[in-house]
Structure formats: C-alpha cells, structure tokens
C-alpha cells in the first residue's frame, strides 16, 4: 500500500481540531507530505505540533477538514477496515515523546513483538525480526530487560526498535531528542539519517531549531494561533528572523558588554554577527 517516493503520502486539508471544552489547537491547517520527504513541524510549545502528529497517525480525528493517507481519508471507520487499518498501522510508526507511555510491555523483547503479533505474523518471522532490529540498533543486550529499568537513551532506542520491527515506510516523531544526553541524541540522529537514506518518510515535531539541519528538507511553521504560517526549505525559514520571533521560536535576548546593555533576536542554531559601538564584532 505504501506509495513510491514523491507520491503524496499524507494530505491535510483545512484541518481544525479542538480538545473537548477547549479552544481550537489547530485552525485551518493544510499541507501535503510526499514519499521519502523529511518534514519538520516546528512551533512554540502548545502550537499544535503533537496534536497534528496524532491526527496524521489516525489517533485523533479532525472536527473540520480531512486527513488522507495515500488518497484514502483517515476516519475511524476506515481504520477498522481490513486490510486498510492493519496496513496503515504497519506502514506508519509513531514515536511518542514519552517513552514510558510507548513502552508498555514487561520486557524489551515483548515490546518489539507487540506490533508484529498484532499483525498476525508467524512466531518465526516475529523472532527473526526482533533479532535483526535489536542488532541494528545495538541493543541486543537489552532483550530480556524490563523497560522500566532502562536509561532515557535506551528507552528511546527500544521505542524506535518497536516501530522499525514493523518495517514502516513513514515515521512520525514527536520531539525525538527531548531529554536525551548528547551521545544518545547524536546516535538517534544518525539512525534517523540512515533510515531516511533507505527511503523512509520522516515527519518530526520539534521546537528545537538546532535539529532542523539534521532532520528536515522542508519545514512547516505553526504559529501560537495554531495556524500554518510558513512552509519551505530549512535555510529559508531559519533566515526569517521576523517570522521566528513572531511564532516564539527565537526571543529578544539582552546581554551586557561592559556597561552597555545590548538586545537582539537570539536563537541557538544560526550564528549571528553584530558590531558593537566599542568596535569589536562577535558571534553568538
């Protein structure tokens, strides 16, 4: 069912979504995701990035508008149909922000087996895939461990393994590097780059702009008013300081140079240069 590279995988059309009794957290959002693309959804906290990922995974359904996967609308009825429902769950993996929520089985091995067993695959096939996936992510030693006793980096790798074992063609990643130490973060980014090189479509929700060069070929920006306000290449989006300030992804930063208090927009991804009235230039 997964489409070839370049085909529209997800089509989001005029989506409006609100949690019960709350104002909308997505308002008239439209865009497309193409096969093999690396798309980042960026926005400040509460802008609706995670909710949008839940909609793409068919876990929530829009109040208005529609979300379609390979041309077929994602509705509760459609996801309960065979073969569309199981195939969608196999092809689209969702890495949750909280690994504790994602790892619900007593042992790492059971965690990896959960998805394939739900698909009705044979025991031999499931065991073979578990072995290969654990080896791929270099976590074979964790096979008999309880997820509760793992470090944050190990949990994230097990969570990713529990998706990869299903051989998905799309990965939805919700703040994938949140709470990881630098080594775990770097390892995860390497794995994701390798997966993308294999042709996987990656859709990542993040508010960490430093990740964009590693995770995205295209960026969609959500405003604090929950609307899509920009869609383009990472370099173009990151260069638009006014936009980033307006959506609260960078901030006006003040600091002192001697007795002089100095303000400028500040972000941690693109070095900026400025000249001070006492003569020297520095990068921040």
């Amino acid at each position, binding site marked *: 069912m997964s489409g070839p590279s370049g085909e529209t995988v997800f089509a989001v059309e005029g989506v409006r979504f609100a949690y019960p009794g709350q104002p909308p957290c997505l308002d008239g959002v439209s865009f497309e995701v193409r096969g093999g693309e690396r798309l980042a959804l960026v926005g400040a906290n509460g802008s609706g990035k995670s909710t949008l990922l839940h909609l793409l995974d068919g876990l929530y359904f829009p109040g208005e508008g529609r979300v379609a996967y390979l041309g077929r609308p994602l509705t509760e009825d459609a996801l309960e149909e065979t073969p569309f429902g199981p195939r969608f769950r196999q092809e689209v993996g969702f890495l949750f922000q909280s690994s504790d929520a994602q790892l619900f089985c007593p042992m790492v091995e059971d965690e990896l087996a959960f998805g394939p067993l739900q698909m009705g695959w044979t025991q031999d096939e499931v065991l073979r895939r578990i072995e290969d996936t654990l080896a791929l992510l270099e976590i074979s030693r964790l096979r008999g461990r309880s997820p509760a006793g793992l470090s944050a980096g190990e949990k994230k790798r097990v969570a990713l393994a529990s*998706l990869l074992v299903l051989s998905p063609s799309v990965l939805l990643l919700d703040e994938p590097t949140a709470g990881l130490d630098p080594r775990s973060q770097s390892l995860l980014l390497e794995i994701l780059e390798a997966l993308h090189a294999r042709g996987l479509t990656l859709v990542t929700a993040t508010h960490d702009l430093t990740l964009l060069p590693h995770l995205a070929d295209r960026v969609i920006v959500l405003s604090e008013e929950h609307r899509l306000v920009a869609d383009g290449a990472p370099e173009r989006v990151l260069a638009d300081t006014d936009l980033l300030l307006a959506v609260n992804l960078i901030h006006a930063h003040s600091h*002192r140079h001697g007795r002089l208090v100095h303000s400028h927009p500040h972000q941690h991804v693109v070095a900026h240069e400025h000249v001070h009235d006492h003569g020297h230039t520095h990068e921040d």
Partner: protein
Amino acid sequence: MTALPEWLRPGARPSGGVSPRPAAHRLLRRTLGAMGRSLALLVREDDGPNAGALRAADPRAKLLAAVGLIVVATFLRGMLPLAVCLGLTLALSVAARVPGRRLLPVLIAVPLASAALMLPATLNVVSGGSPLLVLWRTAGGALGPWRLPEIVAITGDGLLVAGRMVLRTTACAALALLLAATTRPQQLLGGLRSLGVPQAFVMVLAMAERYLAVLLRSAQELHLARLARSVAAIGVRREEAWAAAGVGAVFRRTRALADEVTLAMVSRGFTGEVRLLRPARWQRKDWLLMAVAAAVGAALLILDRRLA
C-alpha cells in the same frame, strides 16, 4: 534587561517571623522507599543462569496446580497437614531456586500480619475453651441482654484456631509466591487469559504490573519536590493532608499516562486482544506437574480427615 526586586539577592531575609524547626518528613519518605524496594523485588528483570526446572513448565499448568493447592489448603483443618503443605511448598521453592530475599519477607510478614489479625480469636470471649492464661478478671454481671464474662483469658482452643489460620495463610502466600517467582508476569497473564479469565481483567493486571513503578516514581518525585522547598516540620496531620493531596496529583498523572498508553497501543495495531510471543504449549511434563499437584492435594485431604 529585567530589573530584579531588591529581596531577590543572596542572603536576603524577610524582617520579623520566627526561625522554623528543620523538617523531618521521615514517615512518607520511608513508606515510599519501602514500596519502591518491594516493587523492585516484584518486577524481576530476568530468570538468571540458575533458573529452576519449574520455570520452564507451562504457566497454565503451574497456575492450575497452585490454585488447586491453595483451595486444598483452605479446606485443611489439622495443624499437621497444614504444616506439611507449607513445608512442601518451601522445599519446592528452594528446589526452584526462589531467592531468599523474595521468600523471607513473605515468611516473616504474612505470619505476623495474620497473627495480629487473629489475636482476638485466642481469647475465651471469642473462641471459648478452657483458659490457659488469665489476662484479667472482671466483676461479671450483665450489659443489657448480654452476660459479661468473669475472666478474659487465652485458651487452648483459641490458640489452635489462630495457629491454624496463621499456618493456612502462610502456606497459601508461599504457594502464590512460588507461582509468581517461577513464572514471568507476561506468561502468567497469558496463562490467565487462556484459562478463560476475561481480557479486560488481564489487561488491567498487565498495566498495573508495568506502570506501578512509573507511578511510584512519580509519587517519589512529588515528595522530593516538596521536600526541596520545605524548611519547617509541619506535623503528622498536615503531612497526611499533603499525602492525600499528592494521591490526587498522582491520580491525574495516572489518567494522562493511561490515555497516552492506550494511544501508543492503538498506534501499533492493538485491537483488544493480547497476543503472546512463544505461546505456551502443553507437554508431558506439564501433565505430570498437574498429576503430582493433584496427588499431593488428595494426600493432604486424606491425612487431614484421618487426623480429624
């Protein structure tokens, strides 16, 4: 730049007030710590290299054997058959290499707790019988339609009733522990499911087994966060009130976590039925285990009837 208020500088103190006593908070900290240690014992990481043969048996066979013997133990009335049942269970636990750190707490806590509950049963006013030790004498008389006893004493019959209950609960707890210590939680749950226990019940047990540790850590973090901001002892009553409020906060987190776990399961194709890796299959040794358990149960019942 934001101007900070004058009082927000190192060493600044408000004028007036009284010096607080340092906070203790030991009760809650100890309780949470003890719960954490108990849970760590419950959630076993792996079988280890010396796993006994009993671990390899079909979980359904073990479940049926253990439940059958627990039912037999509840019917036993004699001290000797109960002691034999407990002795056999302990011997089997040692043979199955159940670690002492799991066995000992049960062998200490269960008899003590059941003995405490059965203390009233040792008295003549509850169980009757001839007094062995008089605790105090009363003036007798009557309270409305009820006649008051002239003495309150520990009786032989009362000791027998209490002793029987202590032995019975210890034997049942040891059997349950033997089952839990030789069966992986997931296999145990799969066994329950294949024996016809409803899916919803099994799922609740599975989630409880997985998330108790997460929720306990959440409670410990709440407690530590409060401890970090506490400068004065607040007394047991306010400590209890805080603990009650903390339960509410943990409950809210539990609900949020439960919602997220459900979504994570659905996202990976869950449709309501748990499917197991390496589902257990009945083998000859499993039938043998069932037959031995049935024979032991029958022998204990016969011994009990003969001694009665």
